[in-house]
């Protein structure tokens, strides 16, 4: 298994009372999977995703990426793992406003001090996601769909094992949503594993597996009725 999650829980305190955002979740994702996790707002899907991406310490449970226990790693090692083996696309705005599109895409390479042609790879990825003509622009000059393509290109910069996206189409129109999901499908066909959380039912056709998150618990399949 590429990603293996067992008994994963996250507890928050709300007005002095325990609140389980994620409660004893088990999940296994294999190489080449395209997994959609669907759920209502506040169901705990983003919390689960961010724990899986190494960005939020779980209260209990285990997350293994290619056999490596994520939260047993020191900051330096988990940072390196995020940089080289995980491609993360955050919800909403995720670009650095003071860097050009080209530099935003190249940034992960600088952070890993990876050898190789970073500029060449960034140009290739911008071409792949269809925005090579926007390379010198600043994020503030781009539309929502174009920004999302920048984030996808950046997430792919260091050739990660898995691409994790938090609500990647939540603020896009129907046509742009479709274009972005088709882009994810193409990336997946090239062999990259994809894990997406969403609350949009229209996007589910692009994955090969759907899970439903409700009240912090994850179940296999799309339980459309319960949503």
């Amino acid at each position, binding site marked *: 298994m590429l990603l293996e999650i067992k008994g994963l829980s996250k507890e928050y305190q709300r007005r002095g009372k325990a609140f389980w955002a994620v409660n004893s979740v088990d999940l296994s994702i294999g190489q080449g999977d395209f997994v959609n996790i669907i759920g209502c707002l506040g169901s705990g899907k983003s919390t689960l995703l961010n724990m899986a991406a190494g960005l939020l*310490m779980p209260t209990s449970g285990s997350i293994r990426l290619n056999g490596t226990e994520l939260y047993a790693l020191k900051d330096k090692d988990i940072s*390196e*793992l995020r940089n*080289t083996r995980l491609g993360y696309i955050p919800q909403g705005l*995720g670009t650095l406003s*003071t860097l050009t599109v080209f530099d935003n895409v190249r940034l*992960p390479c*600088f*952070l890993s001090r990876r050898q190789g042609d970073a500029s060449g790879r960034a140009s290739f990825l911008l071409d792949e996601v269809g925005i090579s003509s926007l390379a010198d622009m600043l994020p503030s000059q781009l539309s929502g769909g174009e920004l999302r393509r920048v984030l996808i290109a950046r997430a792919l910069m260091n050739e990660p094992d898995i691409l994790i996206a938090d609500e990647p189409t939540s603020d896009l129109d129907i046509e742009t949503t479709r274009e972005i999901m088709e882009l994810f499908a193409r990336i997946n066909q090239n062999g990259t594993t994809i894990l997406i959380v969403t609350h949009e039912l229209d996007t589910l056709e692009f994955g090969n597996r759907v899970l439903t998150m409700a009240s912090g618990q994850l179940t296999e399949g799309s339980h459309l009725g319960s949503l």
Partner: protein
Amino acid sequence: MDNKPLNTVNIAFHTLKRKPFRTTGLILLVALFAFTLFGGTVLSQSMENGMDNLSKRMGADILAVPYGYEADIQSALLRGEPSTFYFDADTTEKVESVEGVEAVSPQLYIATLSAGCCSYPLQLIGFDPKTDFIIRPWMSGSLEHSLADGEIVIGSNISAKVGQKLKFFDQTYLVAARLDKTGMGFDNSVFMNLTTAKQVVWNSERIQAHPVAENDNLISSVIIKIKSGYTGKDVANNILQAYAKEGVHVVVAKNMISDISGSLRGLTTYILILAGVLLVLAVGVLIIVFSVTLNGRKREFSIFRVLGATRSKLVKLILCESCLISIFGTAAGITAAALVVFPFSTYISTLLGLPYLQPSPGVLFLMAALSFLISFATGPIASAYAAVQIGSSEIYTTMKEGE
């Protein structure tokens, strides 16, 4: 497309360049701090130097002046303010005969309204080169001959060179020597022998009446050196007992210096307290501003962490930005202070009304270097706490807080 490799410095530089309002504000804040630090230090050090110099090289122990003009002689000596007061020239012989007096030399003070060299009124001082013991020690370079008629010696702030000629009341006079920087009124005065001084007075008669033109036998003050074994106070009392009725009064140099020293101490203490309060305030404001600015950029920093920046890498990025701000701010502040303090030193010394002597270039360089180091350190120190705090926060939480 800019293919230059990304590194910490050029990422920080891009961030500063593309947020000009925020960057300029922070640079100005650091500049204000550097300006206060360097300007304040030079100012207080110059006043201390002026005081030291005055007490070391004053030369005279007592000054005899006409009754009622004690304050005027101080203004003339300290600030070079043109003053005119006179008594009979035979006061010199009378004072010389008083017990405890070793040497005496007369001086004649003439005020000009304008001169070719200067944009302000000048004090012209006639002295007797044969008996003088206070002007000669300040002369830079050697004046081979005794000061001849028509020749003048200029204070260090007078803009003329040795060999040039200066015009007073339509007559030209040859600059024969220049005085070292004294930090006193001498810097703004012009010296000549008594014959030349009287010549100047006669020429001035065409413009305005002058008592010396009507009575050739007048002088303004007598500088007095006392014999060893006597105190200034004793000899001053002797002079007063003998000649106070004739309108002769005395100023004891030591008393004058200790009076100035007292007011200088008060002023420097005031400046130091003010500078201290300003520095503490500036550091406090810098810490708050850096902290607020950095906390407003939480989402931006969490993106670096998402992409794989370690905590230390993030702290380095933040510190690099604040170092750049500090460098530009410090350089601007010190340059601005130098542009105010150095060209306007004469004006500042006049404004302060106290002896003012700038430190040597070497000391000034050291002061600038030290001010640079202290001011430069404020930016990184002010941002270090916020940087460490942001670096050690949970990434997802920081990202949500920054939304």
